[in-house]
């Protein structure tokens, strides 16, 4: 009998440890040419680390890898590339101020730049995989989805045998996700192996030939038919049944306004005609007005780039408003410093965690209590023990998984970083209003649920919540009311109910009807 052809990639008992944290332990996996293999797991389960081992970013502490039957021991990404392995990282590595072709030529050219040749090749690849891209567009002018396409084209140009995609869909719009999955299928159909890291069940159902679940750095489940085994996979991922979110997140009571006779509480947030014009005089946010009652969650829907960043910037005190005012619990906060805004009981979960949400080079404890450091002063000195103790408590309450309060924040997975930031903002003293911008972006199912739970918890304790999100499903599930932004203007608002989905969709696309 003929021996079966050796698999494209074999991982045998891989282990990796970072300091005290065993990130991967005895991970074995095989991947055939021409298959899309989904790698699932909660944040911090070790998916990114596994990809990095395959791509030669880190070396494993234990175990071995084989590529088409041959021993494969990359010591740096260049080795992986040489072996025909290409990877798209979670964070893009593109030079923003130059054109797409120039970015593609960066790693590949010697001597003269053959731009025309490269552009032609790009167009050919684009036609083959159904990805349109202008080779001479500047990266900084491209949307996130287009930038990712550039990264993928960059990989495909090398004609890889194996393509590793680390959570590629976390930053994409629904249509873009569909396009990306199509590309995956086509790439696999050409005989290339694809490793796709994801949290999203719909994607697994759509493209996965096989799937592997990681939990706590170990293999928790495997499936040869992921579409059929979906429930099993999810259970393995979070080790408990995914409860119907509508049970954990209590349905929003329909608000008919406060009962008469009672004293009307000050609105958690009152925004009056907030307008932001940029340096070029373009109106980015146009007379945004909203009234948020205590205990109410208002969702701000809309395709990204329609004024959400400006709204969040002004409310957090990092961006000046051109016109308009806003108040939290009756205190005017227009133009106040972030410090004053925090002191007024406003919590802010920023969209770009790395830009303004955390200091990655500091410890978990320092980050979680960054806005309250003054409380840890004892005889003029910093009370590190208390800081550590309180951070540990917060980490337990908010399920932030790290080696300890002194661990480097940068070592945490994205989901745990987000939970840490959320924990800090939700425990803002005297919290009256919380603004959360894209709080679940890139998080896995379990973490998303936890974030919803905490946000709903805050609202039950009487805080008003403004939830800015590009995921409509998320808003429909959690919010009481939805406001749709389009080109900086409020296109419409309605109760957050699934029956409104089409109306909201039309508003998001700019139709008034």
């Amino acid at each position, binding site marked *: 009998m003929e021996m079966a052809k050796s698999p494209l990639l074999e991982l045998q008992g891989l282990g990796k440890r970072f*300091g005290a944290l065993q990130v991967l332990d005895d991970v074995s996996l095989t991947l055939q040419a021409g298959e899309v293999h989904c790698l699932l797991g909660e944040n911090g389960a070790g998916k990114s680390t596994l990809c990095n081992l395959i791509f030669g970013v880190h070396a494993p502490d234990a175990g071995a890898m084989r590529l088409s039957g041959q021993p494969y021991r990359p010591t740096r990404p260049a080795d992986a590339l040489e072996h025909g392995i290409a990877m798209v990282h979670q964070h893009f590595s593109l030079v923003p101020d130059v054109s797409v072709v120039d970015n593609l030529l960066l790693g590949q050219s010697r001597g003269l730049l053959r731009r025309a040749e490269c552009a032609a090749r790009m167009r050919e690849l684009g036609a083959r995989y159904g990805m349109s891209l202008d080779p001479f567009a500047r990266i900084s002018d491209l949307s996130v989805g287009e930038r990712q396409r550039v990264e993928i084209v960059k990989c495909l140009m090398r004609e890889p045998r194996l393509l590793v995609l680390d959570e590629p869909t976390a930053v994409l719009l629904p249509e873009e996700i569909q396009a990306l999955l199509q590309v995956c299928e086509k790439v696999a159909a050409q005989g290339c192996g694809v490793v796709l890291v994801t949290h999203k069940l719909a994607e697994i159902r759509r493209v996965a030939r096989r799937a592997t679940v990681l939990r706590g750095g170990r293999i928790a489940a495997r499936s040869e038919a992921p579409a059929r085994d979906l429930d099993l996979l999810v259970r393995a991922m979070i080790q408990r049944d995914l409860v119907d979110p509508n049970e954990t997140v209590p349905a929003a009571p329909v608000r008919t306004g406060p009962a008469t006779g009672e004293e009307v509480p000050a609105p958690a947030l009152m925004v009056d005609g907030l307008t932001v014009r940029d340096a070029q005089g373009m109106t980015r946010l146009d007379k945004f007005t909203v009234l948020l009652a205590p205990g109410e969650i208002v969702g701000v829907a809309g395709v990204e780039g329609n004024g959400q960043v400006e709204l969040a910037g002004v409310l957090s005190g*990092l961006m000046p408003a051109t016109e308009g005012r806003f108040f939290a619990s009756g205190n005017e906060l227009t133009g106040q410093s972030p410090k004053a805004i*925090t002191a007024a009981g406003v919590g802010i979960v920023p969209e770009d965690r790395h830009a*303004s949400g*955390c*200091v990655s080079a*500091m410890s978990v404890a320092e980050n979680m209590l960054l806005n309250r450091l003054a409380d840890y002063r004892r005889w003029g000195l910093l009370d590190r023990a208390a800081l550590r103790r309180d951070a540990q408590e917060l980490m337990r309450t908010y399920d932030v998984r790290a080696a300890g309060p002194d661990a480097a924040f940068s070592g945490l997975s994205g989901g745990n970083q987000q939970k840490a930031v959320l924990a800090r903002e939700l425990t803002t003293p005297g919290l009256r209003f919380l603004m959360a911008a894209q709080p679940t972006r890139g998080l896995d199912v379990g973490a998303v649920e936890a974030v919803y739970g905490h946000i709903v918890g805050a609202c039950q304790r009487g805080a008003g919540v403004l939830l800015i999100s590009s995921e409509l499903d998320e808003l429909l599930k959690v919010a009481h009311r939805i406001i749709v932004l389009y080109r900086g203007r409020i296109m419409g608002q309605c109760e957050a109910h699934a029956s409104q989905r089409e109306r909201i969709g039309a508003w998001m696309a700019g139709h008034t009807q």
Partner: protein
Amino acid sequence: MNPTTSFLTTTMRDQRPILISLAAVAGAMLIGLLLVAALGVSIPAAVAGFAEGAWGSPYALAASINRSLVFALVGLGFVLADRANLTNVGGEGQIAVGAIAATAVCLHGGVAELPAGLGFVLPMLAACIVGGVWGGIVGVLKVKVGTNEVISSLMLSFIGVWLLYGSVQSVALLRQPMTSSSTLPESLEIPDATKLPLLTGDAGMPLHVGLPLALVLAVVVAVLLHRTVFGLRLRAVGLNALAARKAGIAIAPSVVGVFFAAGALGGLAGSMMLQGEQYSLKAGFSSGYGFDGLVVGLLARGSVLGVLAGAVLFGFIRSGGINMEMVANVPSSLVQVIQGVIIVALAGSARWMTRSGGAR
């Protein structure tokens, strides 16, 4: 974790950079000796000259230590600003304006008659304040108009140095009244009561009260950086100013404050040079101490102990080098070369120092 064991493990981990630094310095010295030999000077003579100047007599030892104090103070100021990711290269100017202020107060402030040591304390205080304001200007420019602090502090250094030069040119300012073509442009000697008291009481070993003061300040800076909320906030500001601002940390006062403190340390260094060593202000007073102090701070890589070690090293090299030139005819430029080699060797070995913690 038990704090004692954590302290111990930290100390053990800290040993590796120290060993590497020592090796780098030794290597640089070796290269220096080869250069000396290449110049045709006998190596034993050069080494003897160096040793004599650096620590050969109580006087030489004290002079070396006094030089080290100046480097240490400027280096501490550098490390302080560095914590907030700010680079203070203004030590030279801060020394100069500090020295001008101290001279003015010593000569014309009427402090010599004051009791209880105020005679020497007040000029130092004045130097701190003026140096602090000089440094604070850098912070204000940075916060208000976004001027790069490297440029502004460097330019203010030149302004400071030339202000000093100008101030000893005119009798209306600080120049001594008795001038002739033979007297250098310099101030009168400051009154005895304003000179820093000697620790030994013996002019043969002129160690002054600046030594304990600098050590206390080193401890204060170390505590400030590592054990206070202020230090942690500075760090947050340095690593991610936007996130720090978002978390309610006031950026502007931190930046201005840290530059004021760095400037004050520089000014204090200037007053110590005047009141503890030179006793009169003259053109060329600061002679590059501020820039050497900056290098000390740079090489210390944020560690106060590193500043002290670097300061001692540079202080002794400078003293030894001067004597080597006089006794063994080794040109002082060679000492500069050796100093440069040390800097390059130390900076280059930083790569192995950071790797000592294990791969991450």
